[in-house]
């Protein structure tokens, strides 16, 4: 009896999450209609975002925030993946318990800090450092990307570490017993064995970096211009949405739904491709 109840309940939750997904998509799609009909495919390539004087219409294009989102995420991931892997390997294979334990705890605490704090810290302390090292005026793509990297590293490292820790001891020992060095054991046994978990951690971090609003809003500069260099300010989809939502009307509102839809679809595609491509091929 209770088994049946539980089955129904889990079935309900499972279908609910599916309908939620479809529902969100449908709403974004509906509200984006006006902009889609007005601008069509050109929306992706147009750099202008200007409302008319009377706030009724205007020209809206998503090129800059789309590029800004992709670039800041790319910078973040390029920095975060190798560093997070290095930390995870250090924690599982190299560090002694006396160093490993405190570092592990610190990593977990860092992963729990709300993003607005990273944004504030980034603006007041990190941006000036970036400015003095790389030039520019402090806020911009590079600063946003670097702080995004700092934000996702603890999370990525913690999950990868947990995945690497599941490698059975005898498997490592038998590689050592074949005359492997520590480096070879990491490369040939631990990494392939925990591949699924490592890729999972990267995908989740990627999703987080793509959609991050608060920290990026502080750091990317929030200006509608194409970044000419890596330190230039620009904007990103979530930042533009957060900044303009309060005043926007009609066509601008619809254009923002269009942007949200693009972000939704892009995240969805990246995550599904990564998931099916990598996790589906995991050795049986």
């Amino acid at each position, binding site marked *: 009896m209770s088994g049946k109840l539980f089955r129904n309940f889990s079935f309900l939750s499972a279908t609910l999450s599916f309908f939620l997904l479809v529902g969100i998509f449908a709403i974004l799609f509906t509200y984006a209609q006006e902009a889609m009909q007005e601008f069509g495919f050109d929306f992706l390539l147009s750099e202008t975002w200007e409302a008319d004087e009377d706030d009724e219409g205007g020209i809206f294009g998503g090129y800059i925030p789309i590029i800004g989102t992709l670039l800041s995420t790319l910078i973040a991931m390029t920095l975060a993946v190798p560093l997070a892997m290095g930390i995870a390997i250090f924690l599982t294979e190299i560090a002694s318990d006396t160093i490993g334990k405190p570092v592990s705890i610190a990593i977990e605490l860092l992963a729990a800090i709300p993003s607005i704090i990273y944004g504030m810290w980034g603006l007041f302390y990190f941006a000036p450092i970036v400015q003095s090292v790389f030039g520019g005026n402090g806020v911009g793509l590079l600063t946003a990307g670097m702080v995004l990297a700092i934000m996702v590293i603890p999370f990525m490292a913690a999950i990868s570490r947990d995945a690497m820790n599941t490698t059975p001891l005898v498997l490592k*020992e038998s590689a*050592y017993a*074949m*005359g492997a060095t520590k480096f070879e054991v990491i490369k*040939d*046994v631990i990494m*392939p064995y925990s591949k699924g978990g490592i890729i999972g951690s990267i995908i989740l971090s990627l999703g987080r970096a793509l959609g991050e609003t608060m920290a990026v809003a502080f750091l990317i500069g929030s200006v509608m211009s194409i970044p000419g260099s890596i330190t230039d300010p620009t904007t990103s989809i979530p930042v533009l949405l957060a900044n303009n939502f309060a005043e926007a009307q009609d066509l601008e509102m619809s254009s923002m739904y269009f942007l949200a839809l693009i972000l939704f679809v892009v995240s969805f595609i990246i995550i599904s491709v990564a998931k099916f491509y990598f996790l589906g091929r995991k*050795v049986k």
Partner: protein
Amino acid sequence: MAKDKLVMEIKDFSFTYSGAEEPSLRKINLPVLKNKITAMIGPSGCGKSTLLRAMNRIHDLYPGNKYEGKINLYKEDGTKENILDLKKENDFIKLRQQVGMIFQKPTPFPMSIFDNVAYGLRLSGTKNKSELEGHVEKALKDAAIWKETKDRLKESALGLSGGQQQRLCIARAVALKPRVILFDEPTSALDPLSTGAIEELITELKKELSIMIVTHNMQQASRLSDYTAFMYLGDLAEYNTTEKIFLNPEKKLTEDYITGRFG
């Protein structure tokens, strides 16, 4: 017995795990004879694995263990070296290439069957493809698993059955042409048929190399081995030819153990 040559020799060997107060092995003296199978038997916790893991210094993956005494490894030319003197990672690697190890559970690496067997060879510097192929084929044949694997060398080794995986692990060890292979209860996770295949294989292997095997199966020890060491609570209680140990042991303790009166 006098004509048999030594390949390894354990002398007054004591071992204490990191943080343990009492040694797990006390003053062990045990020869390992060339081209012979030496079985190690004894109740659980008596130190069989501990001794085996000292013989290729796998213990050294973990810090803080204490050794005393000597474990000599004899080279082809008759000279010997005390493996407890080794300090550098490079020396451990050379030792482990000469003294291979097979574990209780099969441990195929998450890669193809071919790459599993080629693994040790690649580590030790063999790059040439046709040379690798030749060695891999030979090792798989030596481990009596060539027929089952020759058409699926590129497939993941994790798709093999438990018994096949264990023979693959043996092939992987054999490919390095070690002088000694240490087996720690290699069949305790396998069905009788696979066990039979592995036993046959081990008997075949002794033509080429020397074998030390830990087992809880008295029939296996008596069927397979030439010499038997009986361990008890960290001591080597009795060592002799397998025939003598099983038919006419010197100690009451040994007799009680092999007749199943305890343990």
